[in-house]
C-alpha cells in the first residue's frame, strides 16, 4: 500500500509540473502578442505595460519567466491590473460559495444519479426505464447555464419563490444558505445526474448477467439481498471512479452557474474577469483549478486502492 501511495504521489507531482508548464504556455507563449500588453487589460498605458514587463520578467528567458509566474501565483503576489485587487485573496474569498455549490450539487447528483440508474436497470425495458432514459438523455443535452437563466427568471424574478441574487454563509443562516443555493445546485447537478444514471444503468445490466448473480438467486437469496449485496456493490465501482474524475470538473460548470446566479464565488470572479479581459485572475484560477483536480484525483485513487486490493496489486505488478 505504501508503495502504491508513493508511486501515485510521484506521478501526481509530475502531472502538477506538466499542468503548470502548460498553463504558462497558454498564457505567455502560444498567443501571438505581447503578454504584458494582454495582461494590462483594456485600458493599458505604455507605462503600465512597461512596468508589467519588468514585474513579470517578460524580457527574460522563458524558463525564468515560468519561475517568476509560479512564484507570484503561489506566494499570493498576483495583482489584477483591471480591479487593482490581490487575485489570490479574491480566490480565497470565493472558496466558501463555490465549495457549497459544488458539494451540494455533488450530493444531489450522486443521490439522483444512483436512484434513477437503479430504477431504470431493475425495470429495464419497461415504461419507467423509458421515461428515465429519456430524462437522462435530455439532462445531458441541456445547456445548463441556459436552464439556470430560465429558472432564475420564472422561479426567482417572476414567482419570487427563490432569492435571485447572492450568497449567504452557512454559518450566518443555514436556511437562507440553502434557499440561495437551491436552484444553482439543481442546475449544476442536472448534467451529471443524466450521465451517471446512464452509466449506472448499463453497469448494473452488465453485472446482473454475471454468473455470481445467477448463483446468488439460485441459492435462494431474497431479491433485495441479491440487488443490495451483489449487484449494487459491483455496479457502483465505475460510478465511484468517475466521481473522482468529475468532481473537480464541476469547477468548470460552477463558472457558468455562478455567473448566472451571482453567487460571489470563484466562478463568478472568473466570469467577471472574462468580461473585462482581465487575465491575471483567469491565470490563477486555471492553475489552482487544475491543481485541485489533480490532487483530488490522487486522493480518490489512494482511497480507492485502499478499498479495492485489485487496484494496488495490479499497479505494483506492472
Amino acid at each position, binding site marked *: 500500500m505504501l508503495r502504491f501511495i508513493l508511486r501515485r504521489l510521484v506521478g501526481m507531482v509530475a502531472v502538477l509540473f506538466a499542468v503548470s508548464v502548460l498553463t504558462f504556455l*497558454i498564457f505567455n507563449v502560444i498567443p501571438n502578442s505581447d503578454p504584458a500588453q494582454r495582461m494590462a487589460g483594456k485600458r493599458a498605458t505604455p507605462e503600465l505595460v512597461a512596468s508589467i514587463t519588468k514585474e513579470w520578467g517578460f524580457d527574460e528567458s522563458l524558463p525564468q519567466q515560468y519561475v517568476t509566474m509560479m512564484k507570484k501565483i503561489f506566494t499570493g503576489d498576483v495583482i489584477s491590473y483591471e480591479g487593482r485587487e490581490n487575485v489570490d485573496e479574491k480566490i480565497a474569498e470565493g472558496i466558501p460559495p463555490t465549495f457549497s455549490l459544488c458539494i451540494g450539487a455533488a450530493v444531489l447528483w450522486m443521490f439522483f444519479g444512483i436512484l434513477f440508474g437503479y430504477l431504470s436497470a431493475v425495470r429495464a425495458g419497461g415504461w419507467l*426505464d423509458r421515461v428515465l432514459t429519456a430524462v437522462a438523455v435530455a439532462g445531458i443535452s441541456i445547456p445548463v447555464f*441556459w436552464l439556470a437563466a430560465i429558472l432564475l427568471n420564472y422561479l426567482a424574478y417572476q414567482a419570487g419563490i427563490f432569492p435571485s441574487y447572492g450568497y449567504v454563509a452557512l454559518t450566518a443562516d443555514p436556511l437562507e444558505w440553502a434557499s440561495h443555493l437551491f436552484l444553482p445546485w439543481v442546475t449544476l447537478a442536472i448534467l451529471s445526474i443524466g450521465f451517471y444514471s446512464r452509466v449506472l444503468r448499463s453497469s448494473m445490466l452488465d453485472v446482473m448477467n454475471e454468473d455470481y448473480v445467477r448463483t446468488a438467486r439460485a441459492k435462494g437469496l431474497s431479491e433485495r439481498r441479491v440487488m443490495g449485496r451483489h449487484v449494487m456493490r459491483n455496479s457502483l465501482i465505475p460510478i465511484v471512479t468517475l466521481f473522482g474524475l468529475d468532481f473537480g470538473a464541476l*469547477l468548470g460548470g460552477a463558472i457558468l452557474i455562478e455567473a448566472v446566479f451571482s453567487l460571489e464565488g470563484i466562478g463568478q470572479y472568473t466570469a467577471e474577469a472574462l468580461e473585462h479581459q482581465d487575465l491575471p485572475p*483567469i491565470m490563477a484560477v486555471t492553475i489552482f483549478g*487544475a491543481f485541485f483536480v489533480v490532487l483530488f484525483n490522487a486522493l480518490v485513487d489512494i482511497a480507492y486502492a485502499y478499498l479495492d486490493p485489485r487496484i494496488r496489486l495490479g499497479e505494483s505488478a506492472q
Partner: protein
Amino acid sequence: MAKGSADRAAAGPWRLALRRLGHNRVALAFLALFVLIVVFVLAAPLWANDVAHTGPNETHTLEKINVNGEQRDVVDPSGKPIGPVWFGAGGKFFLGADSRLGRDEMVRLMYGGRTSLMISIAAALITTLLATVFGLLAAYYRGWVDPVISRSMDVLWAFPVLLIAIALGITLAVGGLQLGPIHISGGSLWIPILIIGVVSVPYMARPLRGEALSLREKEFVEAAIAQGAGAGRIMFGELLPNLWSTIIVFSTLNVANNLLLESALSFLGVGVQAPNASWGTMIATGQELITSAPLLTIIPGTMILLTVLSLNVFGDGLRDALDPRSKVRLEARAGVAEPEGTAV
C-alpha cells in the same frame, strides 16, 4: 430463426448495422430532426435576402416598421426591442428584434445556428483526426511513443475542459494566434474551432487507443506483419478499418458536446466574438432582457437543446446498431452502452 441467421451470414457488417438502424424508429426520428435543423440554418441567406431583407449584423435601432398597418418602433424609447410580429411585417422581425441594437432575431437565429453547427462539426473533425492518429501511433509503436502520447493526454485531461477552453479562449481572443506562416486574428471563427477541437482530443483518444491496442494483439495484425506489411499499411489498412464504427459513434456524440461547449464559451464571451451571432452569444444577449423579453433567451437555447438531443439520441442508436453486443448480452432487453465521458 434459421432463415434470419442465413440472411445475416450473407450481409456485411455495415449492411447489418444499417438494417438495425433502420429498425430503430426513435433514432431515425431524431436524425430527421437534426436534418431539419441543418436545412433551417442552411436556409439563412434565403430568409435574410428574400423575406427579412436584412443581414444578421445589421442594426435597425431607430427604425419603424409597419406591422399590420400600424407603425411600430423596432426598439421603443425605453430600450425594449419589438417582440415577435410573425408575418405582420411581411416576415421582417418574424421573432422580433434581439436587443437595443434592433437586429432581426430570426435572421440571427439562422446565421447563429450556422456558426454554432459549423464550429461544432469542424472541431469534431479536428478532434477525430488527431485522436485517431494518436490512438493508432500509440497502439502500433507502443515502446516510448505510447507513454508520451498517453501522458500528454493525461495532462490535458487534468484540466476541467471548460477551464482550459476559457484560458485559451481569452488569451487567443485578445492576442490572435500565429501557426507557422498562418496568422489567425482574435475574432476569427477558427479560434473557437481549434480550441474546442484540441481540448476534446483526450476524451476520444483514450478509448480509441485502448481499442487499437487490443486489436494490435489480434492474429490478423500478426499475419499482416508476417506478410511484410509496413507501419502505414498496418495502421491505416488493418487497424483503422476495425476502428471506424467506434470513430463514427464518438464523433457524432462529439459534435453534440462541442455544441454545448461552444455555447458555454460564447456565453462567457470567449467563443464567437461580437458582432457575429451564435446560439451561445444570442443567449448571452437575450439574458440581459430576460425579465421583459424571455423569448430572446428561450428560443436560441431551445435550438441548442433540440440539436444536441437529436445528435445524442441518434448517436446512441448508431452505437446500438454498430455494436449490438450490449443488446445480445441482455437477450434483447433494451441495451445501452456507456456514454462518452463528458464534462461541461
